[in-house]
């Protein structure tokens, strides 16, 4: 029981759906196998951001520009606003030490073509009047944008289905083997066996386990992020907000930025983004706790207290929910995108850590090109899974 396809995508999050959509657009017969329900993974527990300022100059930043353009065309292709919006973003700076680190970081980003600048205190407060007094400056980029993950995934699935794509929920892959002529047989816990010459491993934080099924190596570590969601409120300032400490927790641009013991243990950083439903997503933590997706009292308290200390007006705002997701993190902070040497037809597209929403469209398109045209652009070689094949697949922190 099961079907045969040109490509089977394992994982129905925003990355899997993007790969499936672009493959289907290029005429491939695609099936997506999602272990859980709709948006059960990190895609359903993230902060909606297409954020440039948090990307180290290099391939990630480069791809983020291309991804932004793809989102604009997806809005018309998928006939939906996708909650796509460009409110801009500001990274808040507390002291001279953080200012020095951010000035250097902004210079690098500008050299890669990002429209970003450092704002004086008064210009900063014009855009964000509710800020606590302790911030001395901020960055500002008008390019930081966002999309509403649930709309993007829903519309990718709907348009994909119109073009013939199949999406199966509640079908967890538990075995992967290859027959004589190189076709893959994908077994699911519900007993189905689907066949295809090409398999795309888009299983996010679980991509390492899927790779193990076929003897491939993808070192992937789940990094838990907790988020608090507020009630609907009028806009708090013009742009979305982060702190320099958030970049430290994500990119470690410079170790000089001082963080407290709790901030470093929880990987605490301030992220504040307005959602489609006029409420705010307030984050976040970065914790290595394996696959435990529960929220914790400590995490909620740290996130909420940090937010109120930065935007005192939030003290009177109700928070209505706390959620957690598992960001898929690779040892070198770059996604894994490409075919595995020695396993023709087995591709991996995962490991976007906090950049899944912003890089989903470009990941899907590049993956589809690799599968359909069999050629890999030079610039993408650094993303190949083979960079890890030498290492043993241990839990690399």
């Amino acid at each position, binding site marked *: 029981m099961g079907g045969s396809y040109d490509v089977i995508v394992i994982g129905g999050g925003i990355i899997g759906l993007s790969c499936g959509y672009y493959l289907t657009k290029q005429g491939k017969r695609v099936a997506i196998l999602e272990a859980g329900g709709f948006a059960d993974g990190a895609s359903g527990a993230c902060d909606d951001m297409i954020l440039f300022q948090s990307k180290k100059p290099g391939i990630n930043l480069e791809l983020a520009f291309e991804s932004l353009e793809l989102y604009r065309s997806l809005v018309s292709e998928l006939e939906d606003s996708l909650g796509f919006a460009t409110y801009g973003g500001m990274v808040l700076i507390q002291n001279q030490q953080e200012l020095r680190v951010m000035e250097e970081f902004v210079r690098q980003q500008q050299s890669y073509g990002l429209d970003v600048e450092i704002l004086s205190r008064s210009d900063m407060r014009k855009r964000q009047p509710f800020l606590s007094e302790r911030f001395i400056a901020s960055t500002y980029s008008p390019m930081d944008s966002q999309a509403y993950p649930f709309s993007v995934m829903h519309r990718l699935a709907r348009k994909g289905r119109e073009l013939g794509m199949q999406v199966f929920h509640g079908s967890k892959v538990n075995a992967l083997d290859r027959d004589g002529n190189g076709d893959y047989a994908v077994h699911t816990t519900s007993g189905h066996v689907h066949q295809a010459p090409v398999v795309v491993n888009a299983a996010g934080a679980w991509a390492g386990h899927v790779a193990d099924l076929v003897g491939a190596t993808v070192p992937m570590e789940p990094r838990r992020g907790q988020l608090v969601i507020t009630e609907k409120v009028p806009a708090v300032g013009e742009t979305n907000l982060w702190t320099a400490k958030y970049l430290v927790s994500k990119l470690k641009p410079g170790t000089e930025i001082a963080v407290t013991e709790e901030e470093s243990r929880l990987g605490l950083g301030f992220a504040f983004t307005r959602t489609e439903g006029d409420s705010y997503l307030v984050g976040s933590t970065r914790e290595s706790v394996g696959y435990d997706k529960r929220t914790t009292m400590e995490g909620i308290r740290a996130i909420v207290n940090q937010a109120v200390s930065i935007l005192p007006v939030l003290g009177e705002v109700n928070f*209505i929910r706390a959620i957690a997701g598992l960001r898929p993190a690779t040892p070198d902070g770059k996604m894994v995108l490409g075919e595995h040497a020695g396993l023709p037809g087995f591709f991996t597209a995962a490991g976007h850590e906090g950049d899944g929403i912003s890089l989903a469209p470009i990941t899907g398109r590049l993956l589809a090109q690799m599968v359909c045209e069999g050629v890999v652009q030079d610039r993408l070689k650094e993303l190949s899974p083979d960079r890890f094949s030498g290492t043993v697949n241990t839990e690399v922190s």
Partner: protein
Amino acid sequence: MMDVDDKKDFFICRCEEVTLREIEEVIDEGYHSIDDVKRITRAGMGLCQGRSCSKVIARIISQKTGMPLEEVLQTSYRFPVRTEKMRVLEEEGDSDAQNR
């Protein structure tokens, strides 16, 4: 004669103002769980976190798909189960003195 079926534009989710029609359309697309319907229509994402609508949505899913109500009813909930102002977490009143 008023046929109730054509009147589907009243709300099932009072907080997020999601109508019966919108919910049924998403179910017809193949999304058969409360979480799926919530994530696509926002029904249940509002201030009351689904208290007024989740049982009704489960009944609609069960009626439209034939799935037994038992398999559809909500069993996953998230903290906090009451909405609170963010300032309440500022200083934790953990000492006995503060709580007599």
